[in-house]
């Protein structure tokens, strides 16, 4: 394959050309209630070529017909020439690298029979179905191994083997007209071994769904709010992480002003970063999809904006350095600036210390979903507890956290010393590319005051 890539690159008359080839074997099993929905295996294979002539725009060809590789290179170079630019596209320099990065497959899923995968998920699904009050479940197992080749005209040549495995469960509890759900979601850049011994989380999600049947809705209003590790991670990814992606600001002077390095975003306790090189996480890879090595990039240091996430193009435009964040979900797409493993760095002290002086507050846990629209966000916690007189009190439901990013970041007043990565499934969506494997991590985070929407306002 390497020789084929080199031969195809030789065809190109563009000033810069890159080729990606991906071959993915995947398997998926799903249950709905006690019934198997499907157990299926897929094979996906294709390529991507991107070319750039000086003074022109990007020309892109994506295809499943791999035997036509040189023709696709010619097509991409023609498309590049069709775009004349006044301000040329420049790429920040990255040292050429040749690497064989065959990640540990940790039990190659391609060698495990589909029946084994079904049996594994059936067991986790049974954990949920066994919980009294649970009337329905949905459980999903998915694995894949991608063999990946990348080469560009500057001399970079990569060959990687990338495993991934995700598990998820939804338990639905119902009594009379009330319906509640509990979610479990697990994801690793690992193989078959990573999917074992995960039953406990499924049972816990189901017991929570049942417990929520008796829980009251939280009373809407402004409270001191403590986010658990998972929700704090989702929050930093959704509400802040996307603004730190440089393609959001690199050609927009007003947005750049909003995201000026040196601007204060929070109090000195707040440190945020994105680390594509952290070992063993879903967002981790040795190189991004432009052949740039991944790294730990500080974004907020002691409350001050100090960095952002780059592709080679955004880095050149802003005169900064590439960070290894140009990623594509598959050969069908061009790499765009994306997060990898985004985190709020650890604080100090215990969770008990964090809530000790809260008279009345809300402890918001886990996430059913979240959406941000630039500076506004809305997150639905999976469940919550009231905090009363410094203690975690009754379970509450319908905990929706909404507000302005800038206000909320600035109100983060304390962080516990219990940092944890969320090893979750799912993924991030942007520009029509979903789901991209990412991870988030955070300690428990205390927000001085935030708006909780609970029962429907009268």
């Amino acid at each position, binding site marked *: 394959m390497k020789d084929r890539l080199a031969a195809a690159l030789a065809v190109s008359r563009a000033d810069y050309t890159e080729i990606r080839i991906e071959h993915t074997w995947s398997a998926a099993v799903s249950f709905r209630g006690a019934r198997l929905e499907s157990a299926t295996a897929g094979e996906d294979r294709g390529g991507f070529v991107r070319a750039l002539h000086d003074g022109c725009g990007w020309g*892109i060809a994506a295809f499943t017909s791999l035997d036509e590789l040189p023709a696709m290179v010619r097509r991409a170079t023609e498309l590049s020439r069709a775009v004349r630019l006044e301000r040329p596209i420049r790429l920040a320099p990255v040292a050429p690298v040749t690497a064989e990065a065959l990640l540990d497959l940790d039990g190659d899923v391609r060698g495990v029979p589909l029946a084994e995968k079904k049996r594994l998920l059936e067991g986790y699904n049974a954990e949920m179905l066994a919980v009294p009050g649970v009337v329905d479940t949905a459980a999903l197992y998915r694995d894949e191994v991608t063999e990946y080749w990348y080469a560009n005209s500057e001399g970079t040549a990569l060959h990687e083997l990338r495993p991934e495995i995700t598990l998820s469960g939804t338990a639905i509890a119902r009594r009379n007209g009330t319906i509640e759900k509990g979610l479990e979601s697990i994801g690793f850049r690992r193989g078959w071994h990573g999917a074992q011994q995960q039953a406990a989380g499924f049972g816990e999600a189901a017991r929570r769904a049942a417990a929520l049947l008796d829980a009251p809705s939280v009373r809407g209003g402004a409270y001191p709010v403590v986010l658990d590790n998972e929700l704090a991670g989702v929050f930093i990814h959704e509400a802040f992480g996307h603004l730190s992606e440089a393609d959001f600001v690199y050609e927009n002077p007003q947005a750049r002003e909003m995201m000026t390095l040196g601007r204060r975003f929070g109090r000195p306790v707040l440190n945020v970063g994105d680390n594509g090189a952290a070992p063993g996480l879903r967002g981790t890879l040795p190189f991004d999809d432009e052949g740039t090595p991944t790294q730990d990039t500080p974004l907020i240091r002691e409350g001050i904006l100090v960095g952002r996430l780059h592709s080679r193009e955004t880095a050149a435009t802003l005169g900064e350095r590439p960070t290894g964040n140009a990623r594509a979900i598959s050969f069908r797409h061009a790499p765009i600036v994306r997060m990898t493993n985004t985190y709020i760095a650890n604080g100090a002290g215990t969770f008990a210390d964090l809530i000790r002086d809260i008279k009345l507050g809300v402890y918001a846990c886990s996430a059913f979903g979240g959406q941000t629209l630039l500076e506004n966000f809305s997150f639905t916690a999976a469940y919550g507890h009231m905090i009363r007189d410094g203690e975690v009190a009754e379970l509450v439901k319908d905990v929706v956290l909404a507000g302005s990013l800038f206000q909320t970041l600035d109100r983060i007043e304390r962080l516990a010393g219990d940092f944890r990565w969320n090893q979750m499934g799912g993924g991030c969506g942007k520009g029509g590319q979903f789901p991209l494997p990412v991870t988030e991590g955070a300690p428990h985070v205390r927000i001085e005051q935030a708006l909780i929407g609970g029962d429907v306002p*009268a």
Partner: protein
Amino acid sequence: MIERVIELVRARAATGDALWRRAERTSVTFESGRLKSCAATEETGVNLRVLVDGRMGVAGTTAGDADDLVARAVASAALGELVSLTLPTTSSLPRIATFAAPAADAPLDRLTAIGTELVDRASREGCQIGVSIEREISQTRVVNTAGADTTYQTTTVVVGLDLARFAGDDVLFVSDQYAGTELPAPADLEAVVRSIDERYTPAQRVVTPPDGALPVVFTPSGLSAILLPLEQALSGKTVLQGISPLGAKTGERVFDERFSLTDDPLVPGRPDSRPVDDEAVPSRRLPLVERGVVRGFVYDLETAARAQTASTGHGVRGTFGKPRIAYSNLILGKIAEGRGAGGFGGGLLDGIADGLLIDDLIGVGQGNVISGAFSHPVALAYRVERGAITGRVKDAAVAGNVYELLQKIGEFGDDGRWLSGRWAASLLLEGVSVARR
């Protein structure tokens, strides 16, 4: 390849159906007002479902190996649940225009010219303009062992225009699009430019939101939060699962009698129209709600078999995974000619002393959607006072229950239009709870 796949299935004395699809897409992207990239993508894939001893198996591939695909589908069937699917036989298909030769043949510079024109017309001081133009030509073939063999071609053209304005920490984002099987006519582009202008101009001024149970107008795009619970409830899948609030209400009047909802895969010129679904079931128009009365639900083959009813021709499949239920063109009320005859607000603002006009909400799809309850912060909304828009509101949230609100609707606007796969006009609802933050 698909003939070979079906032959191999027959050779194993199994039954099954397969979908072959080839799509070629050409797209041009303008970022911050300038042409930035051109892309050509082509993809061919086959999705196969087999029934072996009554058990269903599924496999997909883009790698083109028929033997391997069939082997994997059969292995999947060994684990599959029992289901008695009746595969449709060949029948005469409805005639429907899904392919426009001028769109298929349009050269790259014709597509970039559309973008350049939009950038010129929509540009304004202090705003960033983004435009994307995408033209897809696709061929679909569905074949099964019962003898059905259907094929059709489609063209899809999507032109998107968005405008962003940053002022301090205030971000204003307005977007709209054209989608059709044909290249956009001048009037279509005019409608997109006008729509952006109508949304942008009154949004520059930020005003305090109102508070209380108020009249709220949902624009065709703002209606998503209102229609999503119904889309879930009218799916045969949720009925089968016993979680649809409408599941046992066929023939009952549940909504205002001015409220009707229809799925119609046979609307000419729409990208989601097709003569046949992805399981070879011929397309037909399906009333879901007629004058407030629940009439029907959408089914694919498997869900219909399990529910002991017939497929309505709403099976959709990609290269990977098994067929699932999806709507084609969802029509609220009746399709009127043209698009956006009425202005922004659809002529519904006149009688409103104090209320909201909602174009976009945050978090639609989160939470317990199927119950009909919704609660969302606004993404793009305007205050309406004494019959006119007075400015944009930011820190407000709306909440209610769709099943209560739609029992008595205010009025439909005169601005009916297509928005992706949905036709709707603005809708005035009374007594929506609006909260200021």
